[in-house]
């Protein structure tokens, strides 16, 4: 067998295994989605709203230079339909007008709060209480270099037994907390973490919540591709992981953690570019090693909209960071790989992350080269190559198609024309969107090998309108 033969078979085998995995996940995800949909018909959110049994939640939101989106984001958090909560914003040394905007909007006054500084963080400059909403506390601190530092600072001030870690650039549905906690309180002794699906928009909050019963899909194709990417990830993929008790990424944009678990773990780690996936891995590692019962779940309903970069360069920057995070995490926790001690996480979840997330960009590029070479050297003829390519196009589109199907069956909140749009755009995913992700994957891998740790936050998208309190007010 020549080198090209071997290479061809390796690429084919990798592709076949990857898609077999994906298709299996789609089946598990479909069952989980159906279960959650059925559970909705027998749950009672309204009783939880007025019950003293409903567990209060502390929302912690780190913010850094978010003046363009901070007001709608904070309003959406304070507008949560939940009986008892507190909101702790941690301004991690913003150099723009973020803090001034908050001071004006919420009547912030500087006050002392004595709290236990259990988790170390960069020095606090001042703490502010809101005269308009006693649930709001704003902490201004020196920049700690990572979101983890700001989160830990915020966690120190929390007083409730559940934390909801969110982003300061994301606008939340008013029932995000209630719908997620409804599932958490079904088994509070076991469920230590819960996250849910959030969408992508060029301007978060611009079409949040069904208008005339229907959500509006963003007009920009790049944003739609990102939205579909998250739909695939949350609805088709993470639901499956959740069902298999191997949910490996609780997103920092919206995750509810049991506070005692975070404190036991020693808070979020500042050693990693992103803190969310690392914390998830760490919880799995500790609890499985110590054989303690626990679950980290992912839910399928849309809780928020976050900003998606509206240019290719910004998208590459973001996804390169995500690739870096994956590599940092799998390298740090490499001892979990294929070890029975770590159950399904070690035997299935972790290998998936290594082979189909961490090193995927290289295999994808290698496959393109190998197949191209095979055709050029007449190892493969054009009809076979085209039929293989066509197969991959439809296999790539399938997870999006299933995600759209599952979401629509449960929520019916997109217009039918937007459904068709997503179904057709999914066919172009392999040619228009994946190459960007592949390039970002390379960049992220190179950055990881170079030891880069920076956040590389993308510049905010240009807003069509200035922040308008009346437009975004959801109270």
């Amino acid at each position, binding site marked *: 067998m020549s080198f090209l033969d071997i290479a061809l078979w390796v690429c084919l085998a990798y592709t076949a295994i990857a898609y077999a995995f994906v298709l299996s996940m789609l089946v598990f995800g479909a069952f989980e989605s159906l279960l959650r949909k059925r559970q909705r018909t027998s749950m009672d959110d309204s009783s939880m709203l007025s019950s003293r049994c409903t567990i209060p939640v502390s929302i912690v939101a780190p913010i850094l230079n978010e003046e363009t989106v901070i007001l709608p984001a904070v309003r959406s958090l304070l507008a949560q339909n939940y009986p008892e909560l507190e909101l702790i914003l941690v301004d991690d040394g913003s150099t723009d007008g973020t803090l001034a905007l908050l001071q004006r909007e919420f009547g912030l006054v*500087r006050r002392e709060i004595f709290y236990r500084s259990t988790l170390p963080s960069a020095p606090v400059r001042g703490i502010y209480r809101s005269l308009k909403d006693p649930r709001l506390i704003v902490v201004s601190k020196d920049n700690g270099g990572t979101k983890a530092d700001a989160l830990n600072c915020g966690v120190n001030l929390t007083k409730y037994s559940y934390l909801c870690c969110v982003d300061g650039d994301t606008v939340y549905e008013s029932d995000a907390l209630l719908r997620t906690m409804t599932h958490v309180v079904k088994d509070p002794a076991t469920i230590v973490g819960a996250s849910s699906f959030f969408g992508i928009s060029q301007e978060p909050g611009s079409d949040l919540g069904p208008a005339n019963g229907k959500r509006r899909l963003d007009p920009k194709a790049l944003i739609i591709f990102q939205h579909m990417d998250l739909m695939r990830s949350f609805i088709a993929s993470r639901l499956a992981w959740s069902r298999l008790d191997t949910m490996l990424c609780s997103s920092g944009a919206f995750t509810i953690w049991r506070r005692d678990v975070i404190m036991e773990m020693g808070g979020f780690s500042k050693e990693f570019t992103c803190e969310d996936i690392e914390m998830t891995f760490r919880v799995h590692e500790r609890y499985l090693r110590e054989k303690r019962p626990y679950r980290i779940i992912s839910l399928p309903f849309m809780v928020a909209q976050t900003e998606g970069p509206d240019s290719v360069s910004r998208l590459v920057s973001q996804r390169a960071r995500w690739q870096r995070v994956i590599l940092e995490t799998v390298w740090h926790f490499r001892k979990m790989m294929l070890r029975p001690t770590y159950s399904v996480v070690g035997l299935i979840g972790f290998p998936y992350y290594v082979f189909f997330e961490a090193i995927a960009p290289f295999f994808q590029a290698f496959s393109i080269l190998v197949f191209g070479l095979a055709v050029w050297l007449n190892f493969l003829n054009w009809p076979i190559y085209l039929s293989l390519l066509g197969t991959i196009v439809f296999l790539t589109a399938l997870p999006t198609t299933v995600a759209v199907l599952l979401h629509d069956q449960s929520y019916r909140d997109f217009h039918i024309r937007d459904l068709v749009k997503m179904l057709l755009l999914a066919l172009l995913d392999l040619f228009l969107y994946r190459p960007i992700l592949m390039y970002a994957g390379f960049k992220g891998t190179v950055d990881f090998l170079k030891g880069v740790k920076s956040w590389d936050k993308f510049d905010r998208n240009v807003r069509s309108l200035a922040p308008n309190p009346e437009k975004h007010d959801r109270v």
Partner: protein
Amino acid sequence: MAALFPSLFVFTFILWLGLSVWVVVGRLVYEARQLVQQKVQRELEDLNLAGLSPELRARAVHQILARYPRRSIDRLVVANSPSASVLEVYAQHVLTRYGLATILLDAAGNERKPDTWRRISALQILTRIRQLAVYELLEKALLAPDDEVVGAAIVLLGALGDTQAAQILIAALRDGSPFSSRIATQLEHFPDHAVRSLQLLLSHSNSQVRYWAAFLLARHGAFPGLDGELAPLGNDPDPHVRRAAVQALGRIGGPRATYVAIKLLADPTGYVRAYAIRALGVLGRTECAGKIAALMTDQDWWVRLAAKETLVDMGPRVWRDAAAQLDSADAFARDGAAEVLQNMGVLPDLVAQADGGANSEETFQILLKAIEAGGRGVLEASLSGAEPGVRARVEVRLAAGNGENT
């Protein structure tokens, strides 16, 4: 290889196409069904059924409902809120069309071939139309091995909201159901008369039952002599029960409530002390502010937090009790006292008093200690709102006072 790839291509294409068609067609069917449901709802409302005789009403509704598939009608009734007269006829319609036996069988569950969601759906329909057998079926469902069925049964009993449903839920609590918090969430909304029997559970042998009874009775202060029944639980061996008792007593009040709360300020368990503090706050017992302020030296963080928050809630009338802790040897207590004075909003008044008011020197010293303990935030809280002249003078005195103390 020659035949494999083209076959794979065709297969994946058909799979994608089939799923895409499913999305679109499924959605179109859903939209059509929604239109049907809206049409049924409109027709039923148009008829002004309440004004018709029972026979005419039954005939009119049967004529409408018979035209539509069962699924549409089930969703219409379960999801919307038709009037009682419609529901009554719907009940007859469903039972005539599908047979009571079928629906009751579904609701009872088939042990050999369990179908969770069919059972829940049947229970929902029977609950909605308040079919007589539903109570027994829901009681049986509470013992089902399937958590989803149990959860649904709890919610449906809550939806029934009557005394019989309450008794079933209370019995489940008494028997130690593992879903006690969900049962409690539903029982909280029942009217007083439906949950009187909770009082009998206050002396149950199981501490968890006593806990829930005390917790739930907190909402029913109208029961005569309830404080007398709750008070002995202040001596319960289980700290959870003591906590629930003092929390309930705080809400319902009564002559024994304050006594129990004061006694539990010295409880060996931290969270019981914390709840006792909050109970005194809810009772408005400002005369206990001194005792509460002293607990700002407690070793338990949550007790100190409860003390601070309760003092703030009690308001400016207790500021002197809080200020007394500015002389405590415990740094946490001094910090806490400063924070309490800040949050009470009394500091600007102290600034005004310190600037030549009555007891100005004593007030000034308190202000100085508060600022030393509390830091810049307390200073800003003190001076905000002060007149410029007053502010300037007090700042000078504070600066001089700080120099003397260093």
